[in-house]
C-alpha cells in the first residue's frame, strides 16, 4: 500500500500562491532569454521536453502516490507516432504532435485500466511489465526501424508559415508547448480534482467512504500523466528529428524517476529543476563515458538517503512555502 511517504512536498495549508507566481515568472523568464545569453538552443529544447516529461510523471507520484516504472512507454510511443506521422504520412508538425499525444493518452487508458487495480510495489511492477512488452513490440515492429529508429523526420512549418528548421523558432514553439503543459498540470493540481487526488494519496479508504470513485480519479490522473508524457515525447521526436528505442526502454523510466526525485517529489517546480540538472550533467559528462551512469547512481543513493525532499523540496522547506 502506498503510504504517505510522498506527501513530503504537500503544503500544510494553502497560503497565497504569490511566491509560486514569482517562481513561475523566474522560470519562464529564464527559458525565454536562454538562447540570448548563449545557451545552445537544442540543449534547452531537450531540457524542456524532459522537464515536461518529469512534470507529467510527478503528477502521478507526487499527487496520487503511484510510482510508475514504465513511463518510458508513453515517451517512446509518442515519439514513434509523431515521427512516423510527420515523415511517412506527411502530417503537419502540430498535427503530428497532437496525434502522438492522443495515442499516448489512449495507451494510458488501456494500461491504466490494468495497472490501477494494484498499488505500491505491485503497481510499479505492472507498469514495468507493460512497458517492457511494449518495448519488445517496438524492437521488432518494422515501422519503428528497430535499432535504427525513425530517422530524418522533417521539422515542418509552424502554422504553414514559420520554418521550424530554424532552431530559434523551434525553440520558442517548444517553450510554448512546455508552458502550456506545465500550466495545465498546475491547474489540475490546484483544482477540486487535484484535491481529490491528494485525498486519495493520503487515505484512500477514507476517500472511498466519502463517496469518491477513487479508481476513476486514479485512472484519469494516469491518462493525463500519460498524455502529457506523450506530448513531451512527440515534441522531442520533432526537435531531434528522430525517434529511437532509447525512449521506450526501461532505463528511461528510471531516468525520469531520478529527475523527479532529485528535483523534489510532489513539488511543482521540482521536476523542472531535476530535469535541467540531469540533462545538463549528461551533456557535459558525455565525454567521460560510463561515469555518467556512476554519477546518476550516486545521485539516486544520496537523494534517497539524505536528500529525500529534493532540491526544490529543500528550498521549499527553507522558505516555508510550497513550491
Amino acid at each position, binding site marked *: 500500500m502506498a503510504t504517505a511517504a510522498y506527501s513530503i512536498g504537500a503544503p500544510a495549508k494553502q497560503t497565497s500562491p504569490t511566491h509560486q507566481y514569482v517562481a513561475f515568472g523566474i522560470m519562464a523568464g529564464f527559458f525565454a532569454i536562454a538562447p540570448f545569453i*548563449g*545557451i*545552445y538552443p*537544442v*540543449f534547452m529544447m*531537450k531540457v524542456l521536453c524532459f522537464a515536461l516529461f518529469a512534470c507529467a510523471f510527478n503528477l502521478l507520484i507526487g499527487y496520487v502516490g503511484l510510482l510508475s516504472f514504465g513511463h518510458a512507454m508513453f515517451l517512446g510511443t509518442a515519439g514513434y507516432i509523431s515521427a512516423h506521422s510527420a515523415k511517412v504520412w506527411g502530417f503537419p508538425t502540430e498535427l503530428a504532435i497532437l496525434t502522438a499525444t492522443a495515442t499516448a493518452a489512449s495507451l494510458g487508458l488501456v494500461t491504466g485500466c490494468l495497472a490501477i487495480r494494484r498499488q505500491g510495489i505491485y503497481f510499479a511492477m505492472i507498469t514495468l511489465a507493460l512497458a517492457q512488452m511494449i518495448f*519488445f513490440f517496438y*524492437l*521488432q515492429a518494422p515501422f519503428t*526501424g*528497430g*535499432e*535504427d*529508429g525513425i*530517422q*530524418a523526420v522533417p521539422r515542418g512549418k509552424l502554422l504553414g508559415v514559420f520554418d521550424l528548421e530554424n532552431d530559434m523558432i523551434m525553440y520558442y514553439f517548444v517553450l510554448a508547448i512546455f508552458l502550456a503543459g506545465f500550466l495545465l498540470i498546475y491547474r489540475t493540481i490546484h483544482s477540486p480534482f487535484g484535491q481529490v487526488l491528494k485525498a486519495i494519496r493520503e487515505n484512500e479508504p477514507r476517500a472511498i467512504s466519502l463517496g469518491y470513485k477513487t479508481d476513476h480519479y486514479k485512472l484519469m490522473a494516469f491518462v493525463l500523466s500519460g498524455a502529457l508524457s506523450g506530448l513531451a515525447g512527440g515534441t*522531442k521526436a520533432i526537435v*531531434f*528529428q*528522430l525517434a*529511437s528505442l*532509447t*525512449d521506450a526502454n526501461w532505463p528511461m523510466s528510471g531516468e525520469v524517476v531520478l529527475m523527479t526525485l532529485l528535483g523534489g517529489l510532489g513539488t511543482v517546480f521540482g521536476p523542472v529543476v531535476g530535469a535541467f540538472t540531469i540533462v545538463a550533467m*549528461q*551533456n*557535459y559528462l*558525455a*565525454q*567521460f*563515458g*560510463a561515469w*555518467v*551512469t556512476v554519477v546518476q547512481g550516486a545521485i539516486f543513493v544520496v537523494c534517497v538517503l539524505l536528500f529525500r525532499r529534493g532540491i526544490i523540496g529543500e528550498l521549499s522547506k527553507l522558505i516555508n512555502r510550497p513550491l
Partner: protein
Amino acid sequence: MKAIRTIGIAAAATLAAGVANAQISDDVVRIGVLSDMSSLYADIGGPGSVAAARMAVEDSGIEKNGIKVEVIGADHQNKPDVGASVARQWYDVEKVDVILDTPNSAVALAVNQVTREKNKVFINSGAASSDLTGKQCSPNTVHWTYDTWMLANGTGSAIVKTGGDTWFFLTSDYAFGHALERDTEAVVVKNGGKVLGKVRHPLNTQDFSSFLLQAQASKAKIIGLANAGGDTINSIKQAAEFGIVQAGQNLAGLLVFLSDVHSLGLKTAQGLILTESWYWDLNDQTRAFAKKFAPKNGGKYPTMVQAGVYAGTLHYLKAVQALKSDTDGSKVVAKMKETPTDDPLFGKGTIRQDGRKVHPAYLFEVKKPNESKGPYDYYKVRATIPADQAFRPVDQGQCSLVKG
C-alpha cells in the same frame, strides 16, 4: 585509459558569422571522434579510435605546413539522440569540421543527416549499415572499413566456395540481424548453397542452448551467426560447450571483431570463420602500426575500425591540405573521392561516387591455441577478396549520387 580531450564548455560560444570559403575555419581543423566510449563497442572503436586519429594527425605532417589540428572525442552511449545532439553541438558550437568513427548504425545514420544539413564531413569507420552508401548516401559522407554487404558477401560466398554449402542461421531479432541474414542468405543461394533453417532470438539473449540445439538438429554444415556483440560471444561460448564444432559443424561469425575473439579466448573461438577488411598482422606496415598503437591503447591491438579511423583521418587531412580549406564539407569529400587513397594500413584504394571506400576484404579463420605465437596473434588468412568484388556494385545501392 583516457585518451579523450575535454570538450570546451558550450555555453560560452556564440554562433559564428559566415566564414570565407578559401580558408581554414577558425584557423583550426577540428576533428571530432564520436564513438561508443563505455559500452558494447568501446573496445572496437572507443578511446582507441581517438588515439588512432591522433596518430594520423602526427603522421600526416600537416602541422609542419602551418595548419593547426585539434582532436576531441565524445561518447554517444549507443543512443541515436545523444549522438545526434553531440554532433549538432559540435558543428554549431564547437566548430568541429569532421566527425569520425561512430559505431552503431542508428547513431551513424543520424549523424549522417546532421552532417549533410550542416555541410560538414562525416567519415564513418565503425558502423555496418550499407544504407550509408545506399539509400541514405550523402555528398558529405565517406564510409570506410566495412559494411553489411561486404560481411555477408565475404563470409557467405567464400565459405560456400570452400565447401560450406548448407547453412542454418541464428539471427538476432532486429533490423540489423535481419539485414545480415537476408544479405548472407542471398549470397549463399546465389553460390549454389542451401539454407536449411533459421531461428530468431531476442536481442541480448543470455542463453542460446535452445537455439543451438535446433541448429544441431538441422545438421547444416555451417551455422551462421547473424548477430553482434554480446550475443555473438555468448553464442560462440555456448556452442563450444555443446561440442558443436567437435561434432563437425562450423560456426560462421557474420560480425566479429578482433576484440571479441580476445574476449572469447582461442580455446573457445578456434575454428571460427569471419570476414574483416584489416588485421594488424597482414604485412610489415600494419605490424609497425600495431606496435606503435598498442601502448597508446592500454596494450590492446588495433581493430579494423580503429585502423579505418587512422586511414580516414590521413586521407581527409591530405584533401584539406590540397584544397587549403576545410569549410565546405562536400568539396572536401569531393576532393577525397578525386584523390586515390594510399596509406600504410589499407594500401592503395579509392573512394567511389557513393562515398564507399573500396579495399580488399579477407576471410580469416581463428587459430588454435597452439598455433598462436604471441598476444593478439589470432587469425590466419583463408582467402582474400579483391577490392572490386568485396563491396556492393556501385549501381545497386540506389544512391542518388550515382549517375547513370
